[in-house]
């Protein structure tokens, strides 16, 4: 993987600096892929900046130099959307309780609750887990969000559920 990427101006997010999914091309191999990134006009606005050439204009003949920080390559993260769909499908008809056994975790969670930071150990666990996943596995959450949206807007599934 090189330290120089290209993208089209039409793919850029409206607000630089925000985390976003961006289609980029590796300038060396010309491989085209999507990644979770942050972009900025200046390199010192990012932790680990690489060059990002942004092409623009009707024939993409205008080139502007930006900087990009790769957080998580969507494809390379190996998100198996079929697996996600199956799990989401199964979840519709099973319990949503997550079990885990840990004296240490329970003590820490109860501390957070009894010190007034969360209403319950379950609320604390949900909040902390999602925050951690958003930081470490943004592509997974994004893929799941898209799968969940599909499920919520599937009229065929709704019709079949009603028949059952």
């Amino acid at each position, binding site marked *: 993987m090189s330290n120089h990427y290209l993208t089209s101006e*039409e793919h850029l997010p409206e607000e630089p600096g925000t985390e976003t999914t961006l289609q980029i*091309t590796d300038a060396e191999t010309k*491989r085209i892929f999507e990644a979770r990134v942050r972009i900025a006009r200046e390199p010192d606005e990012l932790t680990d900046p690489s060059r990002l050439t942004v092409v623009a204009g*009707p024939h*993409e003949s205008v080139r502007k130099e930006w900087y990009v920080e790769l957080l998580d390559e969507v494809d390379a993260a190996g998100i198996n959307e079929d697996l996600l769909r199956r799990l989401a499908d199964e979840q519709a008809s099973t319990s949503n309780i997550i079990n885990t056994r840990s004296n240490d975790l329970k003590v820490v969670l109860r501390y957070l609750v009894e010190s007034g930071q969360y209403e319950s150990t379950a609320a604390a666990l949900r909040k902390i887990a999602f925050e951690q996943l958003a930081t470490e596995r943004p592509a997974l959450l994004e893929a799941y969000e898209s799968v969940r949206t599909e499920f919520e807007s599937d009229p065929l599934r709704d019709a079949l559920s009603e028949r059952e």
Partner: protein
Amino acid sequence: MAVDSFRAYLDRLADGGDLAEFEAGVSWDLEASAITMLANQRDGPIPAFRSIAESETDAVLVGDPYRGSRERPWDRIARSLGMASDLSGADYYAAVIDRLSSPREPRVVDRPAAPCKEVVKTGGDVDLLSFPWPYIHQGDGGRYSNLQTLVAPAPDSEWGRWSSHRMMLHDETQASLLLLAGEQVPNLYYYQYERRDQPMPVAAVIGAEPAVEYSADMWIPSGRSEATFAGGLKEEPVDLVPCETSDLLVPASAELVIEGRVLPGERLDEGPFGDYFGYMNGPRRSMPTFEIDAITHRRAPRVPFCVEGSGVGYDRNSSSTLEVTAAGPDATLGLRAAGFDVEFAVPWRFTSRTVWVIATNCPYPGYLHELANFIFTTWGMLHIDFFVFVDADVDPFDPRAVLTAFALEADPDEDFHQFGVERMPKVPLNIYQTPDEKEGADVGTSKAKTAKAYVDATTDGERIRRHADEELRKRARAVIREAGVSGAEFGSDESRGETE
């Protein structure tokens, strides 16, 4: 005898001194295309790059293998089909039309007998980027395979439909295919498979035998099969073999076959690309997604590519040569079959696909308009902008003869006809319309519209006589020939092989 594989074609080029093999390392990143463009511009031999830097396979890149020579663009194609090497343009067309008139059914062979199955990769072993696809022009949206035959299902033929559609490589298993609605395979995808929300199985065949490549550049009507016309061209059946992951049949001698599905409702960026009009052509378009399921290939596959854009203004690459040598004879045959009194329909080789010269009789008033209407509403719908009609005895292969007819017979007041003002479909790759005028470029079903035109450069009566008396011309030629000058120097009559 016609060659029966792409590598046999390269051997035949080498035998004729028309192949330049590069043993030293060359990069797929602009270098191979730059060398090819130089060869194209200098009318040099066809370059074959045996050692591609940073390639995981031992593939050989071949730059514009079907480019014809400057003066006689049909010669290499004729040799590949086992025809005589000294044919005039008219004789070459007559020979191809004769073969197309005798199509032959293909033959299905078992997988072990198919050279294209020497290496088979499926599932997780599939890696498109292990091949040295060229990055052709600075500013292209990606690396391309742009000299390939796309095999797709055909509702009316068991042999499938073959056509030419370039693809831009994205990653290990995905590419975008340039499918422009209005053409047969794109219409099948957009209006049948995608409407049913079904993936369309396809196979991209790279380095097919020449007869396959030529037939894929022809406009074969529904109900007929490119495979049978390829058999006619080579005077032998084309061997086909089943795909690994679909029911499609692909040419068995192919160098490389990429099997997969065009997914419904999914798009990837395609372009910009240095297109055949000679300019970097943007913006990037959203084109159907080709999901790869399997790759099969010969060992050390020969991978051809075309430096599009180097052909404008000259006859200088594979696609412009294939227009003249494959699309032209096919169109001539098709127009005659449709009842038109056409001698030859020939792409004006300096403009790639946009201008055609049609040498024709004009049996009744309104005939030329009828002929133009037929082509503009069928196979010429997307790419052709205008025709130059000349008399049947004007040599359409001879630029001087055509320009002479144009200058002498086309009256600007009466003979320039605009056709279907701003109502005719136009390929959105054209450079003279802005993206707004094309009404968006995000789908293959472009709404681009323009006018078409034709120029009537036929005589309205008696042909204007040349200055010199014909007997005097003949005597002058005889004297010059006695002095040792070849007949080819005399121009149009002799170039058609009509020397006395």
